[in-house]
């Protein structure tokens, strides 16, 4: 290769590494461009081979070996250090630290953004600054300053319309994670600042979604999870969200919140969402019948778990909405995925799909009602794609991206994708409307409206109660007709059973049956339910009298409405003398207005069971009421039923 060509090739390599594009490099050497192009193209292909990072688990394994070896070496070295440690050495170390600190401060002033090659240096310098800050509280404050700096940088990239690389997000993750870890232990004055900053960063990163670089998705999910956990930590919640619970991505759900039989499982629209103490709830959070927005993680098993819950509107509260009309009918229209009933028929005359409109609406028990509707200006819908069809599969994830195939099109579902699941769950067979934008080769779903979902997956439930009778192939367990597993031995009527089952088309098919206590047994029993009444020495849990003595060990702070698990001794009168009570899910599960539960003394006849087939038995066992007296007759599954999905 000629020296001139070689030199140009070397210089172009440097330029490409700095982020210049191929064409601008070639423009610098017009005479050599023809020979340079294939060389540089080959260089780019080869360079791309180096982008492969070791899998996190490999990195972790190697680090464990490395740090074990380091510990071994350090234990041998420490003795030598002590021998040589002198005031002079201490003074010298301090001097080095101070000089380094000054140099680093100057370097950290660099204005590079995350898309610059210098940015990695900036982060490394910032980290060394943390490294030489010994005081824990000062270190936390510095980390928060750095997180704020990273926040401004990401915002600047967004303002400039640039993509956001993973390094910017992982830097935020590192700073926030480390700062919250320190502040949770020290409880310093910076804790409140950290909490507010985490909230702002969470909002910012959610906005990053559509501008995320393709290789930054893992960092994106991990950063949102870390920020969420930092908030929980700073709020004093002793829980966190595991990465596998959001492994398949994050989605937004919006709809009316409805309780299910399980206090931790809610329906938002028709989509089931797990809500527990790791869910951060704004305002009054999930209240039956209220419209809420839920940011939910999609777990590796497909289960949705709520990270945050924000109430959107209260009945009677007026809203002003602006958006694109997606459907028009005489008495209703859909704007930006929200179905809005019209106060007067004909209000939407002249309004067409694709128009941009402003709607003044209010909530009532049936949903949104438009009081005023005004078109604004026509919108260019060219870049927007609206697909209506049946979902070909359940939500799936691959390489960290959530995708959904609808009507033959594959849509990428981002955390910023708004899912309106009023019409049913996000499942195979659901009829949905997807509003998407083309981004390169990918269709990114901006909004998904579930129109109808008639293909629900079987619900996994647990039924606990007394075997009240057997009718043909069916057992009556606490008022619930259960189809037993084939060849299952039939327990004696009056036994207390715990049944794992699948609910399909109204039939509860048992997959596993455990006899907790025989009909004459007065041994230990275990039950779960809602506390409806608390009096001195006696509580009522789903209709069962629980005798609480000074010897009863109570974990948590039970209150009326709390969900509890009770272990105790079954008494002859049907009450349970509690040995141990555990409050499930913290205090937020305790409803200020607990579900009204018919009270009874243990000697009374149990309340009729929820299913019409049930034949109330006069047997004075406590658990005959345990599964039947929750007041939630609408469902064939009793209050004690626990979805275990």
């Amino acid at each position: 290769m000629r020296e001139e060509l070689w030199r140009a090739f070397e210089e172009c390599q440097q330029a490409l590494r700095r982020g210049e594009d191929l064409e601008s490099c070639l423009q610098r050497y017009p005479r050599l461009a023809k020979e340079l192009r294939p060389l540089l193209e080959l260089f780019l292909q080869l360079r791309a081979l180096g982008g492969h990072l070791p899998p996190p688990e490999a990195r972790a394994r190697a680090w464990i070996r490395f740090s074990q070896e380091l510990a071994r070496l350090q234990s041998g070295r420490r003795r030598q250090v002590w021998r040589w440690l002198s005031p002079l050495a201490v003074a010298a170390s301090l001097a080095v630290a101070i000089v380094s600190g000054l140099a680093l401060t100057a370097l950290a002033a660099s204005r590079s953004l995350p898309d610059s090659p210098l940015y990695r240096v900036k982060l490394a310098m910032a980290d060394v600054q943390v490294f030489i800050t010994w005081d824990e509280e000062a270190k936390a404050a510095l980390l928060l300053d750095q997180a704020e700096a990273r926040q401004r940088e990401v915002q600047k990239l967004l303002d400039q319309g640039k993509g956001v690389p993973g390094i910017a997000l992982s830097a935020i993750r590192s700073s926030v994670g480390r700062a919250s870890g320190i502040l949770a232990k020290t409880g310093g004055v910076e804790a409140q600042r950290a909490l507010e900053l985490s909230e702002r960063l969470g909002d910012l990163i959610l906005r990053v979604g559509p501008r995320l670089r393709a290789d930054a998705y893992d960092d994106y999910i991990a950063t949102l999870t870390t920020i969420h956990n930092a908030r929980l930590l700073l709020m004093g919640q002793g829980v966190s969200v595991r990465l596998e619970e959001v492994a398949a991505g994050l989605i937004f759900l919006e709809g009316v919140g409805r309780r299910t039989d399980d206090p931790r499982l809610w329906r938002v629209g028709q989509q089931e969402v797990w809500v527990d103490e790791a869910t951060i709830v704004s305002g009054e959070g999930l209240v039956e019948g209220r419209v809420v927005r839920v940011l939910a993680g999609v777990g590796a098993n497909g289960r949705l778990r709520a990270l945050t819950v924000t109430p959107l509107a209260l009945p009677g509260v007026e809203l002003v909405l602006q958006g694109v009309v997606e459907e028009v009918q005489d008495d209703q229209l859909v704007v930006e995925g929200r179905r809005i009933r019209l106060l007067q028929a004909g209000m939407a005359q002249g309004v067409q799909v694709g128009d941009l409109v402003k709607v003044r609406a209010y909530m009532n028990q049936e949903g949104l009602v438009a009081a005023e509707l005004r078109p604004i200006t026509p919108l260019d819908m060219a870049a927007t794609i609206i697909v209506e069809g049946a979902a070909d599969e359940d939500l799936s994830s691959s390489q960290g991206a959530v995708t959904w195939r609808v009507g033959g099109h594959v849509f990428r579902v981002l955390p910023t994708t708004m899912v309106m699941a009023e019409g049913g769950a996000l499942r195979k067979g659901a009829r949905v409307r997807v509003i998407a934008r083309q981004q390169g080769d990918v269709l990114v779903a901006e909004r998904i409206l579930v129109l109808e979902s008639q293909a629900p997956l079987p619900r996994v439930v647990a039924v606990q109660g007394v075997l009240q009778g057997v009718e043909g192939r069916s057992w009556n367990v606490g008022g619930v007709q259960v189809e037993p597993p084939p060849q299952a031995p039939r327990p004696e009527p009056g036994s207390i059973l715990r049944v794992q089952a699948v609910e399909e088309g109204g039939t509860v098919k048992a997959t596993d049956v455990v006899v907790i206590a025989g009909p004459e047994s007065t041994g230990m029993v275990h039950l779960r339910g809602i506390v409806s009444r608390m009096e001195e020495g006696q509580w009522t849990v789903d209709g069962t009298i629980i005798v609480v003595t000074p010897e009863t060990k109570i974990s948590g702070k039970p209150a009326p409405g709390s969900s509890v698990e009770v272990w105790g001794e079954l008494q002859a009168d049907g009450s349970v003398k509690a040995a141990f009570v555990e409050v499930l899910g913290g205090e937020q599960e305790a409803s200020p207005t607990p579900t009204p539960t018919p009270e009874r003394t243990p000697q009374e006849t149990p309340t009729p069971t929820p299913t019409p087939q049930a034949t109330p038995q006069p047997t004075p066992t406590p658990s005959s009421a345990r599964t039947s007296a929750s007041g939630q007759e609408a469902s064939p599954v009793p209050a004690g039923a626990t979805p275990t999905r």
Partner: protein
Amino acid sequence: MLAIALAEPLDRILQQEGALDSAERQEREIIQRAQRLDQRALAWLYECYYPRVYSYLLLQLGDAQQAEDIASETMLKMLEALPRYKFRGVPFSAWVFRIARNCLIDHRRRRGRRVEVSLDAVAEAQAQDPSPAARAEMSERYERLRRALAQLTDEQRQVVILKFVQGLDNRTIAKVLGRREGAIKSLQYRALQSLKRIMQQEGGG
């Protein structure tokens, strides 16, 4: 663990920005701290070099498990030999890659034969683009590169990977391979010509 996301050595980045002095000073200070077995400095070096060594080995071996094992072994040997490292003209990155190369040679010797280079694991790991068309194109490109790289001599392949994939300069590569800088340049030239020729023959040019 100290969470520093530094995937490239400071000298290579700052060379482009004219801030080499500061970077060298920084890296030298970190290495000196690491030589005193300072955990954070060692974590910094680990974060910086483990991914690069892994990537280098994966391209040589084409087997993720073997690459993981030898990268880990390289890091342990680096830790063990670190107190003996001297700032005498051998860049630190060259020193680390030389350890990695020696570990690779030992591994091949232990295996008793030269391991066939297969980049299937690399191609698989690289094909993360969600678009089917882009994925197909990427997969085809890696397949062509896989075949072409496999046909180079061991030295040519080393040079190509260290120069174009890892981004080391000729002087550093010369230190890794124990050759003169001029020899590295001509190895590069021959390797590129061979790669171009092989890929043209395969119609991917």
